[in-house]
């Protein structure tokens, strides 16, 4: 994985000092909270309902074991002994003291981490496929391109006060595991007819109150124009994105209001101009970065055998592991969704244990997924049982990846100052209702996503089943949506009818699964059955 050189290190060190200075000016009263707010937001620090929340960047979701271990230590030292992994592949701490933040950032900088641009109206942490570099189906590892973009977007002087936040995602396989087309810019690395690698650009996707699927805006951007093209996309947005209404300020609204073709015309015009400016790093820089992502020293000729005689292990292997590009290895996902737990939360001890497993059994690498789980990307099949035993002992071996128990949920009204309703208790109740492994196995893949408000941090628009918490005359109420997908077959979920109470929505989800099981044909997933039979049979069962 990528290692900082002296320049990268200096950038994060300088940032720590700058932020320390900003906090000093705030604490001395030189800065009012209003003045401080946009500054702290550029550094991932939110003032939430009960305390400050600090969001630490995990670029494209990749972590070393040393970094992971520090995340656990920070949870102990500065928080309440746990951290929360997010849908942006980052980690958040919910109980932070303002005066501690410069020291936390200084500790992070020592292991090449930071909180730069994890919030605010700027280019955010760049996300990617959590199986990058390991997946059997990718055409190339997408992370070097994400790293190139990370550096370009860090403190880009022209794009620090955009109309609104800006999220970029880079993937490199047909199976989209990162919701690429639901980003402000989605980039898919592709191979053209001549066999050259390039970047396919999508723009104007997003969730929030106006969910949109990004249209393709350019089929192929050559690698030596990647930064220049990105810069053109951003400049058009910075100049013409709406600033009169924060709910209409995302690039999706600009692309929608101009129309895709007009946005493309403007970008191409700006691109043609910017190509005359010497702003593109040489390909040698991309090659330098790529060298950091060379495959680890995989052993050749390993056995593909796995002893599956332990039934619990067999269940977990079937559910939580994926094919690896290298024979004898697997990709293993650690579910942070135990029955009745808080999706994405891990204790300091669990974080350190995962760090150790990453160090000992996965070439020192871990990944955070947008579904709020952790991945050990390169585990030898011969070690898998040992790894699983260690996870099981730590309460981390829940075999529910992509099932109804593997819920994405935002922090909701338990923490968030924007929320209308709680998300976590709904997630807990649903995971308890469907707690039995047999039942989850019977229902199979069912992606359920819960947001506590219309901002859609819990990705409810992209859920096979989505749940949206709303405030109805002072009472928490939950809308149910069906048919969303974040995969290569991206679709937006539709509201099925009137909302429910907290318990009512759990009952409704259960009824929906019954309708699915009664109508399922062959190997259909819930989503496939829903797409085939439509909403009516579900509505009848739920509303009677």
């Amino acid at each position, binding site marked *: 994985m990528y290692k900082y050189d002296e320049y990268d290190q200096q950038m994060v060190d300088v940032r720590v000092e700058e932020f320390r200075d900003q906090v000093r000016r705030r604490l001395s009263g030189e800065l009012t909270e209003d003045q401080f707010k*946009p500054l702290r937001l550029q550094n991932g620090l939110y003032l939430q309902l009960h305390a400050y929340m600090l969001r630490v960047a995990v670029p494209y979701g990749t972590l070393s074991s040393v970094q992971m271990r520090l995340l656990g230590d920070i949870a102990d030292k500065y928080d309440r002994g746990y951290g929360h992994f997010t849908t942006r592949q980052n980690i958040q701490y919910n109980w932070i003291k303002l005066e501690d933040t410069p020291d936390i950032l200084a500790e992070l900088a020592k292991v090449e981490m930071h909180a730069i641009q994890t919030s605010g109206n700027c280019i955010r942490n760049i996300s990617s496929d959590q199986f990058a570099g390991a997946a059997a189906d990718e055409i190339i590892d997408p992370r070097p391109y994400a790293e190139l973009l990370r550096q370009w977007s860090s403190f880009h002087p022209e794009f620090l006060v955009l109309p609104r936040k800006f999220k970029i995602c880079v993937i490199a396989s047909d199976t989209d595991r990162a919701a690429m087309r639901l980003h402000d810019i989605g980039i898919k690395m592709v191979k053209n007819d001549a066999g050259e690698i390039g970047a396919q650009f999508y723009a104007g996707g997003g969730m929030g109150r106006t969910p949109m699927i990004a249209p393709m805006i350019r089929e192929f951007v050559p690698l030596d124009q990647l930064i220049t093209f990105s810069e053109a996309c951003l400049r058009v947005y910075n100049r013409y994105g709406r600033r009169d209404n924060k709910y209409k300020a995302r690039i999706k609204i600009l692309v929608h209001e101009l129309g895709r073709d007009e946005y493309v015309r403007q970008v191409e015009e700006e691109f043609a101009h910017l190509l005359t400016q010497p702003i593109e790093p040489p390909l040698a820089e991309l090659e330098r970065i790529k060298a950091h992502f060379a495959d680890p020293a995989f052993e050749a000729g390993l056995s593909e055998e796995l002893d599956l005689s332990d039934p619990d292990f067999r269940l977990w292997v079937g559910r939580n592991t994926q094919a690896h590009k290298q024979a004898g290895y697997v990709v293993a996902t650690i579910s942070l969704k135990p029955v009745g737990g808080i999706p994405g939360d891990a204790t300091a001890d669990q974080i350190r244990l995962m760090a150790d497993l990453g160090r000992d059994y996965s070439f020192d690498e871990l990944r955070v997924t947008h579904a709020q789980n952790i991945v050990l990307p390169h585990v030898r099949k011969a070690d898998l049982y040992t790894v699983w035993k260690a996870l099981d002992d730590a309460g981390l071996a829940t075999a529910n990846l992509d099932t109804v128990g593997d819920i994405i949920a935002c922090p909701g009204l338990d923490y968030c100052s924007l929320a209308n309703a709680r998300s976590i208790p709904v997630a807990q109740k649903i995971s308890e209702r469907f707690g039995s492994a047999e039942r989850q196995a019977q229902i199979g893949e069912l992606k359920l996503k819960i947001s506590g408000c219309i901002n859609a941090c819990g990705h409810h628009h992209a859920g096979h089943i989505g749940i949206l918490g709303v405030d109805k005359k002072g009472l928490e109420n939950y809308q149910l949506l069906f048919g969303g997908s974040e995969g290569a077959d991206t679709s937006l979920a539709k509201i099925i009818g009137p909302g429910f109470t907290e318990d009512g929505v759990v009952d409704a989800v259960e009824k929906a699964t019954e309708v699915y099981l009664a109508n399922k044909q062959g190997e259909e997933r819930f989503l496939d059955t829903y797409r085939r039979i439509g909403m009516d049979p579900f509505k009848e069962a739920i509303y009677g």
Partner: protein
Amino acid sequence: MVEVQFRFRDDEAVNDPAVTVDSFAEQSNATAVRIEPGDDARTLLPQLDRLSLVEVNFPAWTDGRGYSSARILREAGYKGEMRAVGDLVIDMLGHLQRCGFDAFAPDKALNPTDAQNAFGRWDNVYQATVVDGRQAIWAKRHPA
């Protein structure tokens, strides 16, 4: 008139009254223009030669359109004074400078020590913006 608090130029300060972008084309003797956030800086390109002062107004520092305006003019070869005016905050001074601003007239005077720290904060930068004449980190990594 708002005072220029920081200026990084050796030439004499221009203090001609700035006209709006809309009226600049007809005001054939005007040498100073003021760009508001919604203005298209590119409409000035045919008359760059007679400009010696461009003011870019930031009614609120969180509106970042002026950063693009400044860079566009510098990319087109404008060499005169580029003055940021309005709601300027210390923490953005260095970034404004990198987009081509070389004079700063904040609504409210800024703490000079903090401001000097902000201008000198970044020894290195990740991007080549042409206008600030600084080498990007990638260029230092791969000397020609």
